[in-house]
């Protein structure tokens, strides 16, 4: 569901890497995506069909095998979904985690009653299904249909193996980056639907932060092999594209929820969830030897002392736009800056600026969907992220984390498309790990150190070019 400590994900990522170099790292392409890209995709679609439950998918001749020996798909997808020893199994543990002491404490502090029956928790810690089949088990947490859609409509045709027909019957087209981003963001950022928004109060009660990057998390969650017949059915995956679309969609989601009158404010305050945690969560100095830890951010015109809107996706999007959609890059830059400025003024101005920025973000998403994201572009984006143009914007923790994830994910995309030999990429692993180490502890984040670590990693990556 969430990654509480980003460095932890980085550790896992290292473990997964050798696998990813063998081609298990999923990269998605957009052969089918175009038709669905513009379709509104929402995890709790009004048209979502009844959810029949994991057991319905788990037959030993379907997705419930012990061995990945299926002809078309692995058929051990459930096994990977419920793998207890890795993040791959995180979704299956989503409900069980509500039984632990931390969850109980959060629920107690919020006065929710048992976490296992609190709507505020169940929106993401179980499957958002309006209608449940007889074999549906809430204890399965985030099951198959949470992402793939309620199966009552499509399971019959799905059995035939005709993917196109399944999509037509309502299977969620997760091979489409935008569709996927939309589904993931419901819980990995938040949505306006019930119980899918982890506001600042919930975090104050003990809930971990929400951190997300679409391509990396896609890889962590992947339970498919991108083999020949996969490509035939769904097209080749492009990790860089998923990353870029994910950034655009995440910004869109953030701005959209921020603009919501019910979610955007909390009492007299803006909802702090949208802000950069690190901008407030800093050390307090009462003594003489005050040491300013806030760094100037040229792209964020907001006075020191006012908490800024979390700009992690804006930074990434800015880099992606400059390389892949240069025609819109300048507008995006200007509108982001204007949004930060408006945010410093008042909520109404901020909402107006958000609407403009959102439109551009969506335009970028559309542009990315149809762009190619080749070798040169990926290298260029990596370079740009660490360059003088972007680098000064890494003043806060969240954006920095995104930068490391981006570097990592884009490098892996290069490996998966054959642009960089796996051995070479493995050789610079330690540099990337140093960058991860620089963001391991949010309480010990130092912008200058981080920029050095990232710069060093990117310089090494540049040599691969």
């Amino acid at each position, binding site marked *: 569901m969430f990654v509480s400590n980003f460095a932890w994900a980085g550790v896992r990522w290292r473990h997964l890497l050798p696998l990813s170099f063998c081609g298990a790292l999923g990269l998605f392409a957009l052969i089918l995506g175009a038709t669905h890209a513009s379709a509104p995709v929402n995890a709790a679609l009004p048209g979502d069909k009844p959810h029949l439950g994991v*057991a319905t998918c788990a037959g030993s001749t379907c997705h419930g095998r012990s061995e990945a020996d299926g002809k078309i798909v692995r058929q051990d997808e459930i096994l990977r979904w419920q793998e207890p020893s890795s993040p791959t199994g995180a979704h299956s543990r989503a409900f069980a985690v509500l039984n*632990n002491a931390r969850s109980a404490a959060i629920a107690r502090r919020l006065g929710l009653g048992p976490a296992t029956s609190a709507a505020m928790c169940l929106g993401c810690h179980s499957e958002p299904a309006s209608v449940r089949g007889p074999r549906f088990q809430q204890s*399965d947490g985030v099951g198959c249909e949470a992402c793939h859609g309620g199966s009552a409509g499509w399971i019959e045709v799905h059995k035939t193996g005709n993917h196109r027909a399944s999509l037509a019957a309502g299977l969620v087209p997760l091979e489409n980056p935008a569709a996927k981003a939309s589904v993931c963001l419901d819980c990995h950022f938040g949505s306006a639907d019930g119980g899918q928004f982890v506001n600042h109060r919930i975090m104050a009660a003990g809930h971990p932060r929400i951190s997300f990057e679409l391509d990396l998390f896609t890889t962590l969650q992947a339970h498919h092999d991108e083999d020949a017949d996969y490509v035939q059915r769904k097209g080749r995956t492009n990790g860089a594209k998923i990353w870029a679309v994910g950034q655009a969609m995440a910004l869109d989601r953030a701005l959209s929820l921020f603009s919501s009158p019910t979610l955007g404010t909390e009492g007299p305050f803006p909802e702090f969830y949208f802000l950069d945690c690190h901008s407030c969560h800093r050390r307090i100095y009462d003594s003489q030897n005050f040491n300013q830890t806030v760094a100037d951010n040229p792209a964020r015109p907001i006075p020191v002392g006012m908490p800024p809107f979390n700009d992690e996706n804006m930074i990434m999007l800015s880099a992606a736009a400059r390389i892949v959609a240069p025609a819109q890059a300048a507008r995006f830059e200007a509108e982001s800056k204007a949004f930060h400025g408006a945010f410093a003024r008042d909520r109404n101005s901020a909402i107006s600026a958000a609407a403009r920025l959102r439109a551009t973000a969506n335009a970028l998403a559309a542009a990315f969907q149809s762009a190619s994201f080749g070798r040169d572009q990926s290298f260029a984006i990596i370079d740009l992220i660490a360059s003088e143009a972007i680098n000064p914007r890494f003043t806060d923790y969240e954006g920095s984390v995104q930068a490391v994830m981006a570097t990592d994910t884009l490098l892996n995309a290069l490996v998966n498309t054959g642009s960089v030999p796996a051995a070479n990429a493995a050789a610079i692993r330690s540099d990337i790990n140093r960058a991860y180490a620089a963001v391991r502890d949010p309480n010990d984040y130092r912008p200058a150190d981080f920029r050095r670590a990232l710069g060093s990693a990117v310089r090494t990556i540049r040599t691969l070019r």
Partner: protein
Amino acid sequence: MWYAGTNDQPGDYRHSGCAGCHVVYANDREPRHSLIWAKYGRDGQTATVDPTIAAKVDHATGQKEKGHPVEHAFTRAIPTAQCMNCHMHQPNIFLNSFLGYTMWDYESDAPHMWPAKQKYPTAAEVRATNDRNPEGAAARGKWADLEFLRNVYDLNPELKDTQFADYHGHGWNFRAILKRDREGNLLDAEGKIVAPDDPEKWRKAGEGKFVEPGANPGKTVHMMDIHAEKGLQCADCHFGQDSHGNGLIYGEVANAIEIGCKDCHGTVDQYPTLLTSGPAAPPNGTNLGLLRNPDGKRRFEWFIDADGNRVLIQRSIVDPKLEWRVSLVKDSVDRNSSRFNAKAARAKLMGTISDAGAVNWGPGVPKENRAHGDDKMACFTCHLSWTTSCGGCHLPIEANWKTSTHKYEGEETRNFATYNPQVARDEMFQLGRHQTTKGNIIAPVRSTSALVLSSTNVNRERIYIQQPPISSAGYSSQAFAPHFPHTVRTTETKTCTDCHLSANDDNNAIISQLLLLGTNFVNFVGLNAWTGLESGFEAVRVTEWEEPQAVIGSYLQKYAYPDFYRLHVERNRRELKEWTRGATFDKHLSGETDHNELFRNVVQGTKDRVGCLQLRGEYMFVAEGKGGFRAYDVASIANKGFSEPIVSAPFSPIGQDMHVSTTNATCMALPTNQNISVKRNDHIVKHIPENQEQAFRPIYRYAVITDSVEGLILVDIDTLSDGEFRNNFFKRAVTWNAGNILAGARHITLAGDIAYVTTKAGLAVIDLADPLHPKLTASLSLNDARASAIQFRFLWVSDAEGLKLFDVTDLRHPMPQPNGSVALANAQRIYLARTFAYVAGKQEGLVIVNITRPLAPAIYAKETFGGKMTDVEDVIIGSTNASLFAYVADGRNGLKVIQLTSPESQPNFYGFSPAPKPELIAWAQTPSPAVALSKGLDRDRGVDETGGQMAIFGRLGSRPFTRSEMERLFLTPKGVPFKVLDTPDMREYVPLRLSDR
């Protein structure tokens, strides 16, 4: 499975093919056997409203027709009762043990099961019964009546000896196994004795006729597997692949199983992986975590409890409301866990014994030093509560009983064999080496298929009777096999003193049983007791021929054949006479119902005194004094077509000579009284090594004869079982009497390679490992040594002063144990049956000595039956059904048959060694004094004291222990016996060393 069920008796309804398992029939009302299906009864009646089925009515009763499924629908919620339609039968794994039952042996609670008035069924009635139920006895019993059979469970509250199951596959009855001590006393959960007349024996106040999962009703403990007690059904361990197979054909059932204990319970080192690990598991195991129940829930799920402990839950496949917390072995041995169990930790983490005899246990014992590691022995070696111990079955085949079989293609056969369990017990615990596919680790071994076969031809001539066959490996077919009995319990497990010497010195018989050396308790005597006479030998007819083969005058005869019993007691005054019973014509002018039965006692004259004789297969081996040594062909002993049923040569005496003349053959012994063929063994060992059979030790080729003048004589008798009848000429292989040490030799006991010979001077011990070169290893002087008998670590010898005890831990060098002496006036032959020594006491009658503690013997009884048995020369013991019998050669008084235990005389008759309550039930005159007896067939002896295997083991690579393997259970590496207590001593605990963490 492709043959439709017979659907003709309660608890025996099923379909075939897929529906054989996946469509449930009502067979058993017991909730722990049927869970959600229990409420539908045991009559195979449907509960569906579908009128196609529901409207079918049995016109005789007006009830719903029987033989239809509960629902006309497939299910995965298959109850144990469904499996038990087939798996109640011996060749189908005999899983009654899982439910705590074994086959009823016709004796316990006999008054309720046999008609008060003896039945005389016609041939048609017998056929009608046997068509449903192959038991020969059924046609005479009440349970031939279907209405009686379906209500057998309802008898339980009134029963005194046992409790019956509510299922009746094949129309059989199954009796409950109950927790008992070694004397046979019923025990409660805490181990306290439950009196036989305790009103809460079967049900405590408030407990109903059936109890729910989790309960074990009554004060007694019904030894059903703990899994079954908790409500697990077969399908809760044996998942899809175990039932459907994996596409490969396996030669042995056990090899087709993928599940193992540790898959769900883990090991001392690891929590369970939920990956199957059995022989048929895929290379990385099947992940049981993937299993889902029909309601969509996970079958297995891990949780963390409020205290932070890992908890594994399993959910029932049958009842969605039922789930269990799985015991985790790792927690049971962890001192910091709330689930720590010192006994479990001690057993599982026990270290190997040091040279000095010290032991330590605990997590600090390195894995490779563990004495009981799971790489060395099967979990269930200790975690079983009991094992099916079938002492044997009788399969008499009858010609001209045309029958359609109920399997395969339903073909017709001209002959029919009824199926007759005889001794079905539960107290034997034996160990050996597991099959190769299980790594040849130590595992429990049970008696399997200890069959004896008979054949009756078209003229109703019994052409051979009760013959134990010989396996293709040459070993006796009194077969054994490593076996998981599915009788796992948590408290009623095996403990230290079940396998190692007890510090109380009270388990010599237990270890003898354990090592498969036998206990001389379940021996099979059969139709005739063979007694040696001063001038010949005699086959005295001692049982019925029909099933059940009750001993004449016994408790069983009284209930199964009340009229015949009365004739024996009242007409014959309990004498085993020569006579013909029955009527040539009954009132319907038929000879079927009470046919003529000829009782004859056959005497074979000999030149001199028959000091020792032994029946083996179709031959009687006899030491006949000045007549030397001879084998007689006695195959036709019960054949009415032979007026001379004992012959020295079946055809011309020129063609064979099974005789060796000696000066004065006083006694003889065979390495085993089981039927064997060394030649077959030679062949299989040499040409079919893939069968992984051991070679016979050389001694098994010979008979060993003592001659008071010539000493020891060995004769190759294997020629009689080599399939070649033209070479049956006996000759001496060796004659040995170095230094005339064997002067006056009069008795011999063979313990594998070792011969214990009583001589004029005392006891001579001779090593026959190289039979042609005997070696004297010890000689002890005694005053008029007479006879000897061995049981594991001790040898008893009778002499002028009584019984003398020797420690034979070192078989070749007996050490006198004066504490074990018993003073007797005139002790002769000795027979050791578990914890009692039966001593032929001449004028003192039959002397019974309690030898539970060999070093502290106690005379239990001196029985003369009021002066009727006062010339006792020899005694043997045998089991028939649930009862123990003694056959006594009472010198000039002839032969005596004594019932030692019966349900009437000894309520503890199912114990390991219930105290005998001798009753004289029959006797026979003999033409000259009866001085010797042929020992009954050993049915619990698979190996001799020196490690020589004699009985076949039914799994590839499985075998009994060698002598050195046996010794590891009771000797330190220095060869000194070590002894154990059942209570853990925390001073021996070794914590985990920091360096190992």
